[in-house]
């Protein structure tokens, strides 16, 4: 689902970023969004492997790149993102830099 169909155009706040990541991750992992929270560990709680994380990264870049030109997630930073909350913080910071 394109971002503009479920959120209004304009800067995304932290909660909207969390919802976006939760939706995309649920779709990729074929699990219910309600099972994903900020404290969820990608590997230990969600069984997300490296390819699943790359799927998430590409989905976020595609959606958020339309809103913030130049939005990109550095592959080198992925190792530091252990939980969903880490990813939310990271994306919020990158959006702020890109805008």
């Amino acid at each position, binding site marked *: 689902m394109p971002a503009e169909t479920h959120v209004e155009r304009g800067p995304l706040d932290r909660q909207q970023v969390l919802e976006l990541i939760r939706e995309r991750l649920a779709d990729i992992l*074929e699990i219910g969004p309600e099972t994903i929270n900020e404290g969820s560990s990608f590997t230990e709680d969600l069984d997300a492997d*490296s390819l699943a994380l*790359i*799927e998430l990264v*590409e989905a976020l870049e595609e959606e958020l790149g339309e809103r913030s030109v130049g939005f990109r997630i550095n*592959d080198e930073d992925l190792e530091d993102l252990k939980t969903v909350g880490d990813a939310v913080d990271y994306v919020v910071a990158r959006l702020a830099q890109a805008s």
Partner: protein
Amino acid sequence: MLPIAVDAMGGDNAPREIVEGAKLAVEELDVPVVLVGQPEALGDAGGLEVIPASEVIGMRDDPAQGVRRKKDSSLVRAAEAVRDGKAAAMVSAGNTGATMGAALLRMGRLKGVQRPAIATPIPVPGQTPTVLLDAGANAECTPTYLLQFAQMGAAFATARYGIKDPKVALLSIGEEETKGTTLVKETRGLLAGAGLNFVGNVEGRDLMSDAADVVVTDGFTGNVALKTLEGSLKFLVSAVFNAMNSSEEAKSVSGVLLDALSPVAAELDPDATGGAMLLGVEGVCIISHGSSSARAIVNAVRVAGEMVDGQLVDRLRGAVAAG
């Protein structure tokens, strides 16, 4: 039919053997083929269309990072050709993980499939092969992954070998339901109630028998089993040849033995299987082994064409949705 996209840069013998195989496939099978790779490296492409790709994902490259960083690689461009409707299927003898990554990230995952799996045909002389999956895509698995592998494996066995209601088994260390890891025990219960023709647990020694048409396991165990079989067969072939040359008396009858053994050897030849199939993505993707010869590529193209005609992807979609 749209052409089969062949990754000309993937494999130990690329691009020479791959290009030769692609040319032979067009001649022998009357199946259209498009090569994907660096045009200047391909040599005589025999007039085949080439989708240019400037980069190559090497055998030692990290699969996920390779796909992400090398966007103009032959693997990524081949997967995009399928996604964009320029090719009907893709074939690669390159980096297995990267092939899976390119197919997953560019073609997309089948809706409902938690994890794609690699299905490898294990030759069984005189019988249809046993489909082993997962042969290495997912080292860590859950019971629901294995259930989906069973559903997809059964659909593949029907599409590929025409087996109606294939016998599905779970790889374990004994037939008894009390044996095996927690994963095996939990999966057994799921498979028994899934509406499949589940015949219970089998052991590694049953892979090359008619005990089952589809054998399900996690990717770590499946890959160990596959490589153990490959190594054992390689050793056995070498030992037989050494024995036939061990004395003048043995040499004198080796011609007769070779005639008798040739058909068996042909059935066990990995180049004859058509390669492994990635199940669970939105397209037909064949992963040929790294040392593929031109003949292996011909067979892979043949199987790819058959699986497109046989609507493999729709069958897999239906099998998972029904489960």
